[in-house]
């Protein structure tokens, strides 16, 4: 019989409730009669918030070593630069 000391895990159900609530907020916000620009900014903010929660708690990045965290976020600046460059092409 395997004897294992129970570890303390993050509150996964709490994170799940947070994700469910944010999804509900997204669905409400998407149909509000606000300007398109405000809606886009708000919806992207909510999506990024949810994605960060998944990465930090479900993928355990919050509890990993600094070296792995740096490795994981390494391509993000490139992704942001690419998307920003593409958007600015049409803004200016």
């Amino acid at each position: 019989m395997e004897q294992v000391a129970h570890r303390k895990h993050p509150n996964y159900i709490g994170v799940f409730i947070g994700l469910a609530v944010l999804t509900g907020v997204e669905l409400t916000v998407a149909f509000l009669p606000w300007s398109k620009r405000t809606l886009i900014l708000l919806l992207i903010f909510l999506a990024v918030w949810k994605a960060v929660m998944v990465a930090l708690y479900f993928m355990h990045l919050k509890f990993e070593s600094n070296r792995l965290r740096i490795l994981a976020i390494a391509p993000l600046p490139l992704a942001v630069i690419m998307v920003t460059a593409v958007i600015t092409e049409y803004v200016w």
Partner: protein
Amino acid sequence: MAHAMTHASVMEPSPEAEPGAGVYNEKLGMWIFLLSEIMFFTALIGSYIILRFAHPEAWAAPGKVLNIPVTAVNTFLLICSSVSMVKAYASIADGNQKMLRLWLVLTVLMGATFVGIQAYEYYHLIEKAFVPSAGLYGSTFYTMTGFHGFHVTMGVICMSFVTWKAFRGRYTAADHRGVEVIGLYWHFVDLVWIILFTIVYLI
């Protein structure tokens, strides 16, 4: 003799060798794979933004063509499957084989249901003549959701294999690398869908 000892000491790994990012090889390999996936989906999203900004008239308002309620249910399902996946990981980390199997089976079922609902969505869209060749809206929609659906399908297949191994008692509290590595992939697929759902369906 002296020559043999010198040769042996060269062959031995250096005790001060750096352990990479401080994680075991399979996990490091999965993270590197996921980094390449980030760039893959960024390229898709970047292309989508270019096309959408250049031809805004080609896109319908949110909910006009795409079925948002059905997709919202699917999104919720994928989030639930992420929770069941992480609960499977927590169960085996605590040495609980029974709960590991239960959570894994639930994750596989929810993943398969997600793919089924996506197929149902495609079927009804095609019935309404919303096909990949219908224009920019159709081609970008099917490319982005199709690639994601392919990733979910691969995840379900790999997770079925992990579940089969779990039923054979291959994972323990001391060694459950397979569960953790497939979990990383699964959460990444969920994370990508969170972004795609907003960009493709809500904006």
